[in-house]
C-alpha cells in the first residue's frame, strides 16, 4: 500500500463539518424530545389506553420496528408529495426520526410501565385518583426512571442512524463527509474523520443523557 494520508483539506472544509455536526445535533435534539413524548403517549395507549386505540398503536409500532429507517425516510420524503404533502429535507428527516424513535421508545417505556408494582396502581385508586391520574402522577416517572438506560441507548442508536438523512440531501455530518470526498477525492480520510466525530458524539450524548437522568430522577427507585 503506497497511499499517503492527507488531511490538509481539513483547514479549508472544517466549516462544512461544523455545520454538519450542528445539524446532526439539532436533528437528534428535536427527534429525542418529540420522539420520547410520542413514545410516552403510545406506551400509555398500549398499556392503559382505550381498547380502540390499542390496535392502531400496535400496528404503528410493529410497522416502524420491522422496516428500515432509510425506507421510512424515503417514503416520507419521496412518497408523501404524491399525496400533496411536500416536505423540506430537514422537516422530512425530523419527522422520520420522531416517528422512528416514537415506536422504539413506546416499547421500552411500556416495559417500564409493566414493571410497575401492582400496589402502585392500587394505592392510586385507593386515593380516588382516576386511571389516567394514577398513570400521570404515580406510575409515569418511576417507569421512565426504570428504563432510562435503555431509552438512552435507543436515542444514541437513532442519532447514529440519522446519518442516512444525507441521502435526501439533509446537510448533516454524513452529508458534509460526502461533499468533502467529492471535492477532494480524499474519501477514506473524510469518512475516517466523520466516523471519529460520530464516535465522540455518541459518547457525549450517552453521558449527557446519564447526567440528565440524574437531574430528572434525583431519587433512587424503591421497590
Amino acid at each position: 500500500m503506497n497511499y499517503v494520508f492527507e488531511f490538509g483539506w481539513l483547514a479549508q472544509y472544517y466549516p462544512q463539518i461544523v455545520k454538519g455536526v450542528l445539524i446532526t445535533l439539532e436533528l437528534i435534539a428535536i427527534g429525542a424530545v418529540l420522539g420520547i413524548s410520542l413514545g410516552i403517549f403510545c406506551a400509555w395507549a398500549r398499556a392503559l389506553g382505550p381498547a380502540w386505540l390499542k390496535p392502531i398503536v400496535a400496528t404503528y409500532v410493529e410497522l416502524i420496528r420491522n422496516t428500515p429507517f432509510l425506507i421510512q425516510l424515503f417514503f416520507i420524503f419521496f412518497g408523501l408529495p404524491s399525496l400533496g404533502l411536500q416536505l423540506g429535507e430537514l422537516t422530512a428527516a425530523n419527522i422520520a426520526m420522531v416517528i422512528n424513535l416514537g415506536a422504539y421508545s413506546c416499547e421500552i417505556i411500556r416495559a417500564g410501565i409493566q414493571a410497575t408494582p401492582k400496589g402502585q396502581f392500587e394505592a392510586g385508586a385507593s386515593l380516588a385518583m382516576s386511571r389516567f391520574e394514577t398513570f400521570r402522577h404515580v406510575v409515569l416517572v418511576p417507569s421512565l426512571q426504570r428504563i432510562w438506560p435503555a431509552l438512552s441507548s435507543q436515542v444514541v442508536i437513532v442519532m447514529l442512524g440519522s446519518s442516512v438523512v444525507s441521502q435526501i440531501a439533509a446537510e448533516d455530518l454524513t452529508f458534509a463527509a460526502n461533499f468533502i470526498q467529492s471535492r477532494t477525492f480524499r474519501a477514506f480520510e473524510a469518512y475516517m474523520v466523520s466516523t471519529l466525530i460520530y464516535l465522540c458524539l455518541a459518547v457525549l450524548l450517552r453521558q449527557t443523557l446519564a447526567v440528565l437522568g440524574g437531574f430528572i430522577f434525583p431519587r433512587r427507585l424503591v421497590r
Partner: protein
Amino acid sequence: MIEFSTWDILRNLLLATRWTILLSLVSFVGGGAVGLLLLFLRISKRKMARAFAKYYIELFQGTPLLMQLFIAFFGLGLFGVDVPAWLAAGLALILWTASFLAEIWRGCVESIAKGQWEASASLGMGRLQQMRYVIFPQALKIAVPPTVGFSVQVVKGTALTSIIGFVELSKAGTVVTNATFQPFVVYGLVALIYFALCWPLSKSSQILERKLNVAHRNH
C-alpha cells in the same frame, strides 16, 4: 414512457429481495462466527484480550453503520483492490453484526449464576471445560430470543448497502421509482416486503422469550 403495472413493480422488487435475504444470511452467520470469537476475547482472563474486544464493540456500536460501509468501500480500495460493493457490504455488515451479537451473548453468559462457575471449578474443570459443559449450554438457551430479535436489525441494516451501490431491495426501490415515478407505491411496497421479512422474526423472538420466562418461573 413505458407503463409499469403494480405487478411489474412488485416482481422487480421481489427479485431484488433475494439479495437482501442472501446478504442478511451471510452477515448473520459471519457476524455470529466473528461475534463468538469476540465473546471469547471479551470474557477472557487476559486483560489485553478483554480490552481489545471492549473497544472493538464500542467502536462498531458507537459509529454509524453507514460510515462503516463507506470506510469498507473506500478503505479497502486503498490497498489497490477494486472493491465490489457486495464485498464491502458483506464485510462491514459482518463486523457490525459481530459487535452486537458479542455483547448480547456476553449478557447471557454473565447472567449465569456465579455458583455455576464455582461448582465447576471446585470439581477441577479448566476454563474451557467450564464454558463448554456448564456455562454455554445454559447461556445458549437464554441467548436464542435476543439473537433472533437482533436478526431483524441485520435485515434492516442491509438496506444501507444500497447507498454504496449494492443492488438489493432498497436499491431496487430507488431504481424502480426512477423508472416509474411512483415513489408512494414503490416505497410502500418495499416497506411491506421488509415487514414481511422482519415481522416473523420479531414475533418468534417475542414468543421464544415468553416461553423462556414461563419456564424460568416454574423452576
